[in-house]
């Protein structure tokens, strides 16, 4: 009897707390596994730093460990020195991707639509695709007046293939009935492209762009090792020359974070462009 009374008194308080508890539970469920993964990576990094610091041959590189790196990272952010290289790099990647999309999407639509074109372009395109974009570096430097131009070219040539082939794949998956119904309703070629083809392939195009962003971000850093005096690649090379290994590792961290964010944006775009009903 006594116990019941106490419970009844507690009830209103509990009821107010319940939604809060539920929210907490939801958050915990959403973050627990990613948090575990991040913790694992940190542990590995920490162990690596410890191993380097305790080996006589590698002791000089001890500032690669999480402690010094995070301190240097904090300095970069607080001093604002981190923004300039990010800006230069994003500028190059942005333009490189712009050209890759501007060329890759129309090319992919054509390849997906015309079987002959697919057959004609198959060998030359697969051949070109397998050449490392960095192999074009000397030619790019000769062909373009500025270093920026050369780097944008390298990014574009690396990023154009995933976009082209993802787009072509999307076009090939279009239900032929959609085109038939469209022409039956009196669609002209512009209508077909605007109302049928583009919405149908949007998800594939963004999936291609996601792959392209990954490739572009990877190509960017080595491309910036050469010639230019700005950007994240340059910042890494510069830190190596001045033996500031903590700063070097901090820039590696920055590259990873920005890359992750770019990928997350792409994932969001893919989800938004999907026409499949949710659930």
């Amino acid at each position, binding site marked *: 009897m006594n116990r019941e009374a106490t419970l009844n008194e507690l009830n209103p308080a509990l009821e107010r707390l319940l939604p809060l508890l539920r929210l907490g539970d939801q958050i915990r469920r959403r973050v627990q596994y990613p948090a575990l993964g991040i913790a694992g990576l940190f542990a590995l990094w920490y162990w690596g730093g410890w191993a380097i610091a305790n080996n006589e041959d590698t002791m000089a590189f001890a500032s690669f460990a999480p402690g010094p790196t995070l301190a240097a990272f904090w300095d970069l952010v607080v001093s604002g020195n981190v923004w300039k290289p990010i800006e230069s790099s994003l500028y190059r990647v942005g333009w490189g991707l712009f050209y890759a999309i501007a060329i890759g999407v129309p090319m992919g639509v054509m390849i997906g639509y015309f079987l002959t074109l697919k057959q004609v372009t198959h060998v030359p395109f697969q051949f070109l695709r397998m050449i490392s974009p960095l192999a074009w570096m000397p030619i790019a430097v000769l062909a373009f007046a500025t270093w920026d131009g050369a780097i944008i070219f390298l990014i574009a040539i690396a990023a154009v293939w995933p976009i082209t082939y993802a787009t072509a794949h999307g076009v090939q998956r279009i239900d032929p*009935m*959609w085109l038939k119904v469209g*022409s039956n*309703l009196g*669609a002209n070629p512009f209508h077909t492209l605007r*109302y049928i083809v583009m919405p149908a392939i949007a998800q594939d195009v963004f999936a291609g762009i996601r792959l392209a962003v990954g490739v572009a971000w990877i190509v960017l850093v080595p491309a910036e090792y050469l010639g230019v005096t700005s950007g994240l690649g340059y910042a890494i090379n510069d830190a190596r020359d001045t033996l500031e290994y903590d700063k070097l590792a901090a820039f590696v961290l920055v590259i990873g974070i920005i890359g992750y964010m770019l990928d997350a944006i792409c994932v969001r775009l893919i989800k938004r462009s999907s*026409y499949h009903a949710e659930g």
Partner: protein
Amino acid sequence: MGAAISIDYITHHYPGQEKPTLKDIQVAVAPGETVALIGQSGCGKSTLLHMLAGLLLPSDGCVRINGHQVIKPSPRWNMMFQKPSLYPWMTVRQNASLGLIFQGRKKAMRERIDRLLETVGLTDKAEMNVQSLSGGQQQRVALARSLATDPELLLLDEPFSALDAFTRVALQDEVTRLARERGISVVFVTHDIEEAVAMADRVLVMGSNPGTITAELTVDIEHPRDRNGQAFVDRKAELMGYFGATRKPGANALPEEAESEATADSDATTTEARRIRAA
């Protein structure tokens, strides 16, 4: 006002096939008339329908709608297919509006579509994604989409064959009612004898190899038709007779009267066709 159709001496060869798929087909359809093409799979009935829609050009002969030769699809005649083939990234309203958008008739489009959706009983689903609808509801959207452009002729390629029995009967009656109200001519392909008798003013029986019209049956039963009425049952039995499944003795033979009528009719069309060619 419904369209007058004249199918003049159509013979069609698909590339690589020795025998013609269709041979010497000639049919005249009066404005507002509903004609069924019935036959076993592969008799070319669907091919013929595609020619009426302008989605396929015959090797010989031609289709005329209101005296104009059909050379390409037009929103004035509209085809519905076995699958609704709606665009899954659009709502019910957007799907139904598409023909009007393609024609540039955006004025008062909203009200028009509202009225149409009411006609097909989908008012409350207007803003929903079509993927959440049942098969019958999807086919209703396709019907609204076909009717939106005020076609003079509706072509149906087994549009109800994928639906359950109840929905099928409901849609058969609904399409018949709408077509009669609006005076739209209808040509539909089916292999369902009941569907042919339920909807058509005239049934054309097609034989295969090569595809020709082997018999013609007039269904002069008042609308709405009672599917259990004696006249209905008799017509079904008669039609069944043409496919060798005799229910009534003597039904297998072509009725004398119908044959002579068909011959006379085709003679008239032939002379007319010759006159047109000579002119």
